[in-house]
């Protein structure tokens, strides 16, 4: 039996699929690659027929990413599972490394790593995330922000029998939700090294993640209805819960403003405005804090610049 199942979901985007599959095979000695074709209407089926040693599963009626990932899990056999998007890359040998980490720590639920960010500019990726890779009990941190690159996670199949499958009703944050449910019951491990290359979405790439406003609305609802009601969160003190909720709100506000400024840089005024408005409506406090923080920083920067100028002039 293979040690890791890599589940690659694909919908009408066969261009980069072969590369993703090859990277998955190179990432471990004993890897099972399951390609889930989510009712593509293009050449995806043909492309997959040419690929060697994959398990090809074709869904006839489109299920969205989370639903397709669940079908992939159903068709996989390994003890450890990881997801890979069809436009991302796994780095060589990283799956073996993560699998052996899980083997040596039987109580850990999953192990995640860093992702190099491919911004689509054609230049080699220089940026990566997350900067810090916390280990152990990461629930509180994870509740306020999804710092885990989805494709970097290798998780234990047995976790699913305690926390359930991916929630297909929250496409786009389904992975975050699963990590939270797992982290509420299991300690987590991390490698502070890149294990994958993540292709960042741009407004033109048509990826789900480019709809920041929708994601934040969905996350906020999920936070209020589900995450804040997790048994381990409920038993926390009022103060601790309030702190988590404030931090969540601040991060969401910040995220929307960053996305708004990105939209602005792409010349998408409407999107920028809608992001900002949602930020203010859902997370007034977090948004105001972010804006004040940014303004103070830029004033400090200006002040620093003035001082440098002055000192430069003085030395002249």
């Amino acid at each position, binding site marked *: 039996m293979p040690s890791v199942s890599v589940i690659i979901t694909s919908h009408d985007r066969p261009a980069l699929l072969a590369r993703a599959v090859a990277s998955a095979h190179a990432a471990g000695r004993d890897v099972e690659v399951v390609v889930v074709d989510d009712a593509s209407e293009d050449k995806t089926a043909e492309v997959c027929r040419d690929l060697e040693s994959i398990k090809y*599963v074709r869904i006839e*009626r489109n299920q969205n990413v989370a639903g397709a990932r669940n079908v992939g899990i159903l068709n996989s056999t390994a003890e450890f599972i990881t997801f890979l998007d069809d436009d991302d890359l796994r780095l060589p040998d990283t799956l073996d490394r993560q699998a052996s980490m899980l083997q040596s720590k039987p109580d850990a639920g999953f192990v995640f790593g860093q992702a190099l960010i491919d911004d689509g500019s054609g230049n080699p990726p220089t940026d990566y995330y997350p900067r810090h890779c916390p280990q152990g009990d990461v629930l509180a941190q994870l509740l306020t922000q999804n710092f885990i690159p989805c494709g970097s996670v290798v998780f234990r199949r047995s976790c699913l029998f305690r*926390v359930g*499958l991916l929630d*297909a009703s929250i496409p786009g944050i389904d992975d975050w939700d699963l990590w939270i449910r797992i982290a509420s019951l299991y300690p987590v491990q991390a490698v502070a090294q890149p294990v994958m290359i993540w292709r960042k979405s741009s407004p033109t790439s048509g990826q789900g993640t480019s709809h920041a406003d929708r994601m934040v609305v969905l996350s906020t609802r999920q936070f209020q209805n589900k995450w804040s009601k997790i048994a381990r969160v409920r038993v926390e003190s009022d103060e601790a819960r309030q702190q988590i909720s404030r931090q969540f709100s601040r991060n969401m506000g910040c995220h929307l403003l960053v996305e708004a400024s990105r939209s602005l840089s792409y010349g998408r005024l409407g999107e920028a405005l809608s992001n900002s408005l949602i930020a203010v409506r859902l997370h007034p406090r977090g948004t105001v804090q972010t804006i004040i923080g940014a303004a103070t920083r830029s004033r400090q920067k200006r002040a620093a610049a003035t001082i440098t100028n002055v000192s430069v002039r003085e030395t002249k």
Partner: protein
Amino acid sequence: MPKVSIIIPTHHRPHFLQRAIASALNAGSDVEVIVVDDASRDDTSSVCRSIAGIKYIRLDHNQGTAGARNVGILASTAQFIAFLDDDDLRLPGSLDLQVAALDRNSAAGFVCGAMIMADQDGAPTAEVLGPTWASGDVFWQLLELDFPVLPLSVVIRKECFSKVGLLNTELQGIDDWDLFVRIAELYPVLVLAEPVGIYRKPTASSGQLSSAQAQHLSRAARHLSCLLELPRVRSLAPKDRDALQSRALNRIADTLLWHAREATNKGSYKFAVNNVVSSLWIAPKRTLTHVTYRNLGPILFNQKLGASNLDH
């Protein structure tokens, strides 16, 4: 490898569960019984751990019936899947019967049988509910809710889930209908006349999830518009599609009003009003016609008659 897995999702009902499990173990010669405990906080786990020969899965995060069934499907090692609710029963040998039917017809997606209705104590009544249509393409009947089938009465080929996806966890109470429609869109369905299970019929006050009928039927009415987007429906002429939609909505309204009348007879007026209001939303014209001519009409007429009798 077992031939068929029977998945029993359960939540806070250990007293019924034991009987259900016993019936599942007896229902076939090569059965894998999977009990998915959906985060119960009572003695469900100790009850399950005391029963030999079952696979017991305990969820720590409540997933709802559909989510728990999905976890059961993931745990299954068999080629065929059956479901059983914790307060229903499977009849002895019924799984063998259905598995044999699927083995004989390799193209069929699932096979369904008839169900014996039981009262609140689980005692069988003489009422037997079964599909009235022959085996084959029953997609349209299922879509129009004209095909009595429940998770209790089916055995599904597991590969269907890879073609149409798993159960939709957003559709509490109607996730089964949604699944059957999606499978029947692509696969022929087998129909057996034999009863395969005993269904504990919900009543207005039983506290079973199915007694939230108004809610579920309203959800079905809303979800219908999604199902009308399925390719086979889209291939219809717009006129036929509209006709199909109104037939289905009228059927939902009829069901709601029928339950409303039953409830009125038993004095549960709140339930009845609830149903009439829902029905009014779903199919206003149908509801008004019904209420005026079949219910309100006769009542008013009788009263008038009574009044005129007094005059004389």
